[in-house]
């Protein structure tokens, strides 16, 4: 499969593509793990704390909630979520690193931790300073327009229209320089040769409102985050930022169809524990979080967030590989962009 190869070429070791419809019957990634496992020496004898470096309402807050619920269903151990938002995930990471490494505190984090380390190696490396327990969501981005837009209707006419505007066309994007979203937009503008003004929004709702209200011409986002607008028919995707089209968006052109030749970057979310935590506890946590990925409630959650369109699961070794490759990829891009890499 071409799709598989290209993912592998970007450092993403992809398994099979799964489609939402047959997910419930599909074998799940961690079916092979034992159904139960005793913690070492009575561990965990109290509730775990999960530090989430983002607010409860966003993508990370929701995946933390779903995973915590799945782990509790599986093991009976309760998990207190401790949201510490701010600084693009830096603050939660700092608080996590300051907490005792006794295996009672786990961390949720996203690919921003990898790109932050790529930019400044003083920041913790999620693959080396932490032990990834599981990566449970991997997703791609798309470009959206309003469904009732008549100035352009698809990717080709959009590019043509943007070029005719002489740099005055606008697209809503996130407000963090060097983030997955901004780097990908740079790939797209370089590859197409179009000039488009990005408008920076740090929160999701105003970003979507700007497209819905006609303040901007297009929007850069991941499908799970704008699902309500897609289901309502308010927005429609015109470009999928993957080499090949996933089944759920079979009618939307992907990179290869559009003649865009770059390796896509991914949004991924996962769970971590400090590397100094006792090894036998880490082993139990790995089992619990990986096994919980296949809990019915978690699988249903991932499906509702479009997280089943490409393989979303990585175990510890797979996550480390994903993170290490991602860091290398970003470091190359940053150097090319002339950003100061520390």
């Amino acid at each position, binding site marked *: 499969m071409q799709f598989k190869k290209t993912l592998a070429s970007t450092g993403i070791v992809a398994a099979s593509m799964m489609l939402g419809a047959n997910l419930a019957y599909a074998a799940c990634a961690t079916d092979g793990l034992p159904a139960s496992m005793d913690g070492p020496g009575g561990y965990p004898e109290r509730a775990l704390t999960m530090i989430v470096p983002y607010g409860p309402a966003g993508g990370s807050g929701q995946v933390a909630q779903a995973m915590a619920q799945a782990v509790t269903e599986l093991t009976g151990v309760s998990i207190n979520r401790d949201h510490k938002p701010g600084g693009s995930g830096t603050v939660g990471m700092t608080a996590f690193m300051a907490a005792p490494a006794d295996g009672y505190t786990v961390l949720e984090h996203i690919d921003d931790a990898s790109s932050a380390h790529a930019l400044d190696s003083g920041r913790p490396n999620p693959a080396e300073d932490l032990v990834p327990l599981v990566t449970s969501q991997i997703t791609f981005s798309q470009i959206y327009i309003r469904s009732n837009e008549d100035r352009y209707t698809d990717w080709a006419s959009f590019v043509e229209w943007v070029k005719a505007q002489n740099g005055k066309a606008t697209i809503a994007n996130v407000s963090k320089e060097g983030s997955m979203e901004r780097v990908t937009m740079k790939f797209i503008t370089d590859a197409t040769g179009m000039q488009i003004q990005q408008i920076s929004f740090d929160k999701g709702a105003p970003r979507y409102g700007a497209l819905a*209200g006609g303040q901007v011409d297009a929007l850069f986002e991941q499908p799970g985050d704008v699902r309500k607008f897609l289901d309502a028919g308010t927005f429609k995707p015109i470009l999928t930022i993957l080499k090949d089209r996933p089944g759920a968006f079979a009618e939307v052109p992907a990179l290869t169809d559009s003649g865009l030749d770059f390796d896509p970057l991914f949004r991924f979310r996962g769970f971590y524990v400090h590397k100094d935590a006792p090894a036998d506890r880490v082993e139990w946590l790995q089992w619990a979080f990986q096994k919980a990925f296949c809990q019915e409630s978690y699988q249903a959650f991932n499906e509702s967030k479009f997280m089943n369109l490409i393989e979303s699961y990585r175990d510890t070794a797979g996550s480390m590989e994903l993170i290490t490759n991602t860091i290398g990829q970003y470091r190359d891009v940053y150097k090319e962009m002339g950003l100061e890499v520390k």
Partner: protein
Amino acid sequence: MDTFNNFLNGTVTLFSDPIGILIFLGGVVGGMLFGAIPGVSMLTLAAILLPFTAHLSPEHGIMLFSVIYCTGVYGGAITAILFNIPGAPENAPTAFDGYPMTRNGQAGKAVGAAVMCSALGGTVSAVIMMIATAPIANWAIRSFGPPEIFALVFFGLAVASSVGARTFWKGWLSILVGLLIAIVGLDPVGGIERWDFNMPYLLAGIHFIPAILGFFAVSEIFVQAEKKVTGSYRAPELSVDFPSLAELIAHKFAVIRSILIGFFCGILPGIGATLAAFMGYNEAVRWSKDRSEFGKGKMEGVISSETANNAATGAAMIPLLALGLPGGALTAMMVGVFQMHDMEPGPLVFINSADLVWVVFSAMFFANLSILLIGWLETKTIINLLRIPFQFLAPLILCLATVGSYAVRGLTIDIIVMFIAGVVGFFLRRSGYSLAGIVLGLILGRIGEQTFAQAMQMLHFEWSGFFGRPIALALLVAGFATLAGSIYGAFFRRRH
């Protein structure tokens, strides 16, 4: 008649379900209590309850939060009046006249006015919300882009600069300091670290909740402690004489004006009830014949601010439900409640979950009405907090404030910031600067910078682009006119 039938259906659904009634009552009482306990606010309660809503049905979860919103905005007025501690930023102007009324032994009158006006403003706004949500939301989202919101922020700040400080310059310096504090953290365009002084926790920025608690609650405790040291502390006199109906009817114009202002401000995403309350208060001052009475304990000040902020609650639901755009911290948490149930607020909600929407609407209507009933009862009990000797009340308030500021983001730096704000506030209060101005600058600073940057990006860095957007232009002109008037007054006004 559709609207009325929907409302009836919603009401029947709400009150035919025992668990629903329980949650409704819990929300009413919880919002009032957390609003009225000094040091914590409805935001504390909402932040605490958010994870639990996963176990409720979506109707119950959203209904609970909307009820907390209505009663919490009212409850915050109680502490603003009794202790000079606004429960939320939208109650800050209530304290301008409410707290002096308490010191004058008119606590009962002030609280009574807050009860009546909150209920009235909230109820009227709930009715308008039911009728007008869809059309207004569509108008607002199309007409108010970043340039307009920036212009509105500018206008709001220009207006607020003339409230609360001793001179025009001190008013502006207060607001500018607020804007300066808002800069700490990541910049809103590129995520670049600013003024973090190499402390990673500062990257989260300075949140307005700890700042409010520090400036108002903690600094007040220090002032009272100082009075204790000198022996000049006197406990405020208790009074439970509520205002008469005639007194309220005498202020009917203030009430109507504040409802209009409150509702209009509430619709705008990201601005909401805070600006509503400030503008409501400020307009009351502007329209008044004897301006010198304001700030000394004039009931009209309490009436204007409390009517306006409750009128904003219904309006704030409009962009939230119709567009999925939250207007403030509490409505942002409601988005979280929706998302925990795999739902997103937005146009779809009206189609897929019309039942939910109307249950919420009628719950808000009745929550506002119940402020009248439960508010009277609660007020009579909560006012007795003033009887507790201050040396015992103080540590309780400080601990509650500690929990309250920590619960919002789970960061200990927020507790440090709160207490530092308390110390700074304690000294600034001696000097004629406006703490409310600093808080408003802090709240609007980030929105202001972000919408300015977005406006510039949209207008391709051509300032003349504002001329092509009439609403933005009008707001900017109004802001500059306010500013010019104040400067003129500062230099050329004759002393009488």
